């Protein structure tokens, strides 16, 4: 395995792992806040148990997210020191802000988790709200960095021997910033909510009368459905920005080799980079022009007009985009089904087909997040800073990177298994908790 590939693989594994925990760290506080508020208003025991189960989950996901995020902040330098030398003074600004958001989140998570019976109920509820807001703020700042790598505003390389001219504020407020943030936040809320729905639906298949799981499913489906139904709008805005700023990425997403007006939208298909064709795709005439430019006759740049050494890997980006859109459509449909039942005051624990669809929705939603992230980051290749620095020029000279890559892969695999096992144990333990228990907090 060559060093560049090992470095990219280690970064990919670290991000693929962290993004799950980061998304849940953004989404779960919102669910917990709703459940906690319902409990305080109504005194519903089911919502108390649900809040406790979710907060234990949050304790795990936040801690693992925090440590895997720490790893990433160092890996930026461990793997891409030359990128950081150029980018540090720019992306350090949003990262510094993110540091404070993260501080706030960690402080109030401590107060929330250990505050049962120690702080006033209003303070605890406010802590949950602060966690939810600061989690979203963290996403805002991290996505600014991601946006800058794709649309590097505020950076003008100097002539040889002279320093570049930089404007960190312009870099932070790059064109992708807000669109990416909205897309990621909606994805985080949808994936977390459907992830929770998976757990509750799976238990309701066995025990349809369980009040805690019914309560959990209502909140999860409500939040997940709204996020999933809004996501296509956000996706449309993002795709049009990509069309404008990163034609190579858009062409790879749609496996469009030929520059043309009335470009078709491809569904499925296997791109062949050598032959510059796509096999087995369903083509919707003028669909891509319509979506990317809101004009069926608009001309879309194909890969043929982009130097081949600036192509992203076409097949992975195309597949990832298809997966993301396909799953997103499924989630919106399941969410709409759930909302429709709730609007007519029908229970969500039947029919069983809905429960099975929800069991499938959670894992699929996280697959969609991974796929969407693949579209953004693999679609950015071969650049680490789009149009300015190639990934290959940023990698560390440190030899033998296959060793840390293997180490972190194994470490994260073990942690992933442990987290899944623990979530199941926590759900089962809350089901069996005695009915008269008081909210005194967790055992020390």
């Amino acid at each position: 395995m060559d060093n560049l590939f090992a470095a990219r693989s280690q970064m990919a594994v670290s991000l693929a792992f962290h993004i799950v925990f980061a998304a849940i760290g953004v989404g779960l506080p919102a669910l917990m806040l709703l459940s906690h508020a319902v409990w305080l208003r109504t005194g519903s025991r089911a919502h108390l148990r649900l809040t406790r189960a979710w907060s234990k989950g949050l304790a795990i996901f936040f801690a693992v997210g925090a440590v895997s995020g720490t790893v990433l902040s160092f890996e930026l330098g461990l793997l891409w020191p030359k990128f950081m030398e150029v980018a540090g003074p720019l992306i350090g600004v949003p990262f510094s802000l993110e540091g404070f958001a993260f501080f706030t989140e960690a402080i109030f998570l401590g107060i929330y988790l250990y505050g049962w019976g120690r702080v006033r109920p209003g303070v605890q509820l406010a802590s949950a709200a602060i966690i939810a807001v600061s989690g979203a703020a963290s996403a805002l700042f991290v996505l600014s960095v991601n946006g800058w790598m794709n649309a590097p505003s505020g950076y003008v390389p100097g002539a040889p021997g002279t320093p570049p001219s930089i404007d960190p504020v312009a870099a932070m407020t790059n064109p992708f910033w807000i669109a990416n943030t909205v897309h990621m936040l909606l994805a985080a809320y949808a994936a977390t909510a459907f992830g929770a729905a998976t757990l509750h639906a799976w238990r309701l298949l066995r025990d349809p009368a369980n009040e805690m799981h019914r309560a959990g499913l209502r909140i999860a489906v409500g939040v997940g459905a709204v996020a999933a139904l809004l996501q296509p709008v956000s996706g449309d805005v993002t795709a049009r920005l990509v069309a404008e700023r990163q034609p190579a990425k858009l062409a790879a997403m749609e496996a469009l080799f030929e520059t043309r007006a009335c470009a078709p939208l491809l569904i499925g298909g296997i791109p062949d980079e050598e032959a510059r064709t796509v096999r087995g795709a369903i083509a919707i005439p003028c669909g891509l022009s319509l979506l990317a430019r809101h004009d069926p006759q608009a001309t879309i740049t194909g890969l043929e007009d982009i130097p081949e050494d600036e192509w992203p890997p076409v097949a992975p980006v195309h597949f990832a985009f298809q997966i993301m859109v396909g799953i997103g459509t499924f989630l919106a449909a399941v969410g709409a089904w759930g909302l429709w039942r709730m609007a007519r005051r029908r229970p969500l624990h039947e029919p069983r087909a809905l429960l099975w669809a929800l069991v499938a929705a959670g894992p699929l939603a996280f697959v969609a997040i991974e796929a969407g992230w693949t579209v953004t980051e693999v679609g950015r290749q071969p650049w680490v800073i789009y149009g300015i620095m190639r990934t290959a020029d940023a990698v560390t000279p440190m030899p033998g990177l296959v060793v840390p890559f293997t180490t972190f892969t194994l470490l994260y695999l073990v942690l992933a298994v442990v987290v899944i096992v623990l979530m199941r144990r926590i759900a089962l333990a809350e089901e069996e908790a005695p009915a008269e228990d008081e909210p005194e907090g967790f055992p020390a």
Partner: protein
Amino acid sequence: MSAPDALAATILAVLVIYALLGGADFGGGVWDLLARGPRAARQRETIAHAIGPIWEANHVWLIVAVVLLFTAFPPAFAVIMTALHIPVTLMLIGVVLRGSAFVFRKVDPRGEGGPSGWQTVFAMSSLLPPVMIGVVAGTVSTPVLGYEDGVVTGGFLRPWLAPFPWIVGFFTLALFAFLAAVYLTLEARDEVLRADFQRRALASAASVAALGVVAAVVARDAAPELADHLANTGGGRLVVLAGALALASSVAALLARRWFAARAAAVLAVVLVLVGWGWGLHPWLVTGAVTVREGAAPPVTLRLVGWILAGGSVVLVPAFAYLYATFHGRVLFPQALRRDDDAPGG
């Protein structure tokens, strides 16, 4: 003070806070590992109780330090992360395992009470980060890392596989363990447990002193500039002398069972160790490779970061104070502890 110097001093201040808070959490892991005898379970309980609500917030200081480093001094970050890839990676593995195991132990419904596998992982992995942080701090104090045009000279092993970095590594571990033991004398809920941590504090203070002397001797050859700045300048001598006095005062206060005085002196000793290191290292960030002045980011970035730090502190300081008052209010001031000890069932 120039803007780069102010930013470097800020990073040092962040590292001081990290040592005092996050460092002590790792030290708690050391005493969890070494818990022995009939009170082992209660010692571990005291440690877990002390760390529980605060370790994640404490940990953020490390991230702030690294973010400030790559924002304000990108070449220093690049050279450290390149040349010291291996010790930094080992530190990260410790960070991941420690944090994960600690929270797994807390939420695992089957893990309540009694030692579990998580507890062992937590305790063992607490050793790695302090040693590796010390190794990194030791290596950047020695003139072995070269850096020219984005290329690191000096190799990836030789610079840190030397005696001095490892002496600093174990010194750091001893220092964090000492700090934790001193804090735990106040966290302990009764006199017997307090005496346990008193003994541990005294033993680790002896290790800190011994390793400190060894480091000073070895530094003359290994880190000549650092040694020179500390031994031959007025400020350097003052910091070293004050640090030694603070450590001695902490020991004296421990022997006299004056716990709050012992903690204040221990905190002062740790502050002085880090201030002394910063004093000795200046003007370098990485000895022989990157200086504070030449390594600094453009002024616009330094200015923005200064504003962000000032603005962020307005939010951060009250929030941190509230966190500590809520969970450690009992041990923040002597009056509160006395009240609590007098209270029935406290």
